[in-house]
């Protein structure tokens, strides 16, 4: 065989070996066999010596061309095999992604506190500051300072839990008004939120304990229209675009008095009482009721999540069944 014939044969064998290799490891073997320091193609260069001087460069070049061809073939084959091997390896490592994750317990806030927080955030963003006041309140703050005449039927709406002759559980967060005005001069933008208590038979829509948010604004030039706009703004933040209803109602501490509601489903969701702070109250707090006017409201919190989530029994809030609480 001439060196050229030998070269052609080895190149063919090498190409076959590359094509027949099944793994990257076998390919590496082929590379060593043919292109290694003692490889068969590399070894052909030894034959250069037996060639006439003028053919030497040509033959050397021919070997190098074959080597380059083989390297290219090796590289291509290696890439394909590596990809297949990677696919097989990771495929063997696959999991059933439809199984549940390695989960942890989830907690969550009570729907009432979640609602209270939403109300608080909304009013704070509107410029009202929150503070806390006692649940055990003096009669003076709960009634007297709120313009309740003695022996008035208005008390019938406020059946109270008395602790002693002077103290009771506040029947309305409105009790905070005199506390606020004792310590501040107008302009006033204050609010409070919390529990209130009234002696009521407990049923699906009544509880002896409920939650209210009270707001008090006193300033020059405040109007009933401002109260209406403020209520509309709050309901927009809490319920989206809803129709509000403002209709006359009576509470001793406001004049004009308003019952505020929003349209919900087929009817009206009554949220509470509101109105312009009665001038008697401003005067009793040493605020000039000619110069300053005020508006106030006391809204029920519990009805809000009941309406929003379709909860039909207020007792569920106090029962705290986790199957109920987890829904919010």
């Amino acid at each position, binding site marked *: 065989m001439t060196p050229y014939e030998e070269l052609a044969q080895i190149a063919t064998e090498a190409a076959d070996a590359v094509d027949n290799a099944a793994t990257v490891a076998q390919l590496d073997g082929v590379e060593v066999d043919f292109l290694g320091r003692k490889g068969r193609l590399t070894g052909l260069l030894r034959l250069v010596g037996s060639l006439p001087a003028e053919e030497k460069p040509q033959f050397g070049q021919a070997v190098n061309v074959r080597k380059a061809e083989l390297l290219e073939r090796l590289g291509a084959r290696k890439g394909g095999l590596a990809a297949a091997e990677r696919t097989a390896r990771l495929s063997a490592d696959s999991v059933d992604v439809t*199984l549940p994750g390695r*989960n*942890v*317990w989830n*907690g*969550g*806030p009570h729907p009432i506190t979640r609602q209270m*927080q939403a109300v*608080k955030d909304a009013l*704070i963003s509107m*410029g009202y*500051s*929150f*503070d*806390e006041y*006692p*649940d*055990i309140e003096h009669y003076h703050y709960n009634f007297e300072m709120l313009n309740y005449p003695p*022996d*008035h*039927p208005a008390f*019938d*709406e406020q059946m109270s*839990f*008395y*602790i*002693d002759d*002077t*103290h009771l*559980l506040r029947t309305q967060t409105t009790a905070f008004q005199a506390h606020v005005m004792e310590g501040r001069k107008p302009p006033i933008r204050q609010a409070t939120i919390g529990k209130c*208590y009234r002696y009521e038979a407990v049923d699906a829509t009544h509880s002896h*304990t409920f939650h209210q948010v009270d707001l008090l*604004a006193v300033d020059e*030039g405040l*109007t*009933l*229209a*401002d109260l*209406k*706009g*403020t209520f*509309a703004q709050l309901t927009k933040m809490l319920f989206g675009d809803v129709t509000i*209803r*403002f*209709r*006359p*109602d*009576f509470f001793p501490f406001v*004049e*004009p*008095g*308003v019952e505020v509601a929003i349209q919900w489903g087929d009817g009206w969701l009554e949220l509470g009482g509101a109105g312009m702070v009665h001038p008697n109250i401003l005067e009793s707090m040493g605020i000039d009721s000619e110069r300053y*006017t005020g508006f106030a409201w006391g809204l029920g919190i519990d009805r809000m999540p009941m309406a929003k989530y379709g909860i039909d029994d207020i007792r569920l809030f*106090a*029962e*705290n*069944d*986790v*199957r109920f609480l*987890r829904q919010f």
Partner: protein
Amino acid sequence: MKFPVEWLREFVPTTLDDKALADKLTMAGLEVEEITPSEDGPVYHTKVTPNRGDWMSLLGVARETAATLDTKMSWLPTPLPDENDDVRRWAGVVITDTALCPRYAGKVVRNVTIGPSPDWIQKRIAACGMRPVNVVVDVTNYVMLELGQPLHAFDYDTIPEGKIVVRPANAGETIITLDGAERALQAGMLVIADREKPIAVAGVMGGAETEVTDSTRHIFLEAAQFDPGSIRRTSKVLGLSTDASYRFERTVDPELVPLALERAAELLADLAGGEIALGRIDLYPAPKRALPIELRPTRTNAILGTNLTDETIAQSLTRLGLIVDASASPFKVLVPTFRTDLLKEIDLIEEVGRMIGYDTLPETLPPSAGGGGVDAPRGKFAGDLRTVLTSIGLQEALTHSLAAPSSFDDPEKTDERVAIRLALSAELSGLRQSLVPNLLGVLSHNLRQREPDVRLFEVGKVFAKGEGVSNYLETRSVAGVLTGAVSPRRWTGEEIPAIDFYAAKGVVEALFTRLRLPKPQFVPGQVHGMHPGRTALVEIDGQPIGYVAELDPDAVKSELNVPASVGRVAAFELDADALLAVSADTRHYTPLPRFPAVTRVLAVVVDSEVGYWALESTARSVVEETLLEEIAPESIYTGEKIGEGKKSVAIRFVFRAADRTLTDAEVETQMRAVETALAERVGAVHR
């Protein structure tokens, strides 16, 4: 109040249907809560606000309706002048206290025939929710419903000589009222009396002795004006609220007295065949006059936020039956006696608002008062507590502050419980002193619903009596109860540990870490209802601020009403106000370490009762503070190899210097010091 719509339509003709009319009234403040059918046609159920006693009659509702619809009433009762004094042959009245009884009128109807009232009256008063009795009682009720003036009919023959005295009761007097109950009267309660004894509780209920019966021949009819507060007090004390007292409490127009009296007498003459004794007794020494109030149109617009013309304002009030002199500045307004709720300018401004309709008011926002809104620190901190606890898998509960006493209440604090006066039930008998008993009740409920894994917390007030009179303490508390598995059961087959003391302690530690509170100390202690060997008092600088514990397993069984399968129950409660007081944002950046750390684990054997903290604190006291990065327990082991009453504790130490790589020799020096100190101070033997 409830009444047939048809009755109202007799006063105020309108083409509006029942629903549309109800909506109009509701939007004007006279809420129609529902419309129900009756034998007398559809019935309105109205909500009467406490200031509007005049809405307790058809006349008052009709007046409001006419004003709202801006129309005229088809009829108004007009008083018949009756100057004849024939009645004085039959009866006489004396008022001893005109403050309690400003007006008292009476009329005598003779030779009535007692029987059932005609069908149309029976239907009407039944539709209004009253029970037909006989023609006399039914007529007085009918006129009360129609005009709003309560009336009372006495059997004339039971009053000696027809002599009536309106006076305060004397202490010790009693009366048997129409309902058959004997009632002890208190001195000062107003009564209608004959010459000797009370025969009716004025404005509340008549007496049984003078009741109209089938054999009654002559009637003494009473119409009067009583002091609202006095009637209310009497009604409350006697526990007796009637249709009459309800109206008197809300004030009744004194001008109704003669109207109602004549109307009832006429009806009795018509329907019971009675003969009216001419004339009426009518004692009214100080007649009430229309009240003059000044109204500024500018002020009206300034309060309502409107631009109403003088004319609109004046008309609104005129519609309501007020007399307005709009040529004066300010307006001079006369308020008739049927509107006792209108006392000041602001009351008139509300009336203007009602008549133009609150729905027509613009919506504006007040100017900013400067400065934004903020939450109080206490409220914000409560929110922070909730955020941390919910984020580590606890569910918030919200329980009542009113609570029954619990076997988990601390018996040493029974005296501090804030009790409700005259409590009607145990559940409403006082205020909670701790959140844990309520939470345990909730935990128990959930376990009974077959929810084996319960992790609840609450942030809320607890209450206590302080020193002195009417001194009540309200403290914010944060508490939790936990039972079941520490994490959800998984299909991976991992062993999930059950909740125990350490699970609850982990929650407490997370609170301190996440809220950046000072590091607390956990000291073995005793808390009522808790496991004596698994209770830690939580202290900050030696001050106890709460506890973390497992419940006493025997108490879980005997006091909790839970399935027998329940495992350990853990609980914690901390004084949130105390936590807030020590909370401070002390965050300060520490450069990240540039040199490697060296970790060593030291295993020692100590007596079982030696607490881990004794080992760590001893070690800390001798190690060079600047080199120590961490000390933590690695493992605790007890068993035969260690010996009875002993345990092996492996402690991990991590050393690092800020400015260099530590040498082995430096670390060894530290560890030698630790070994020596542990041996000398807690008897630790190096393994």
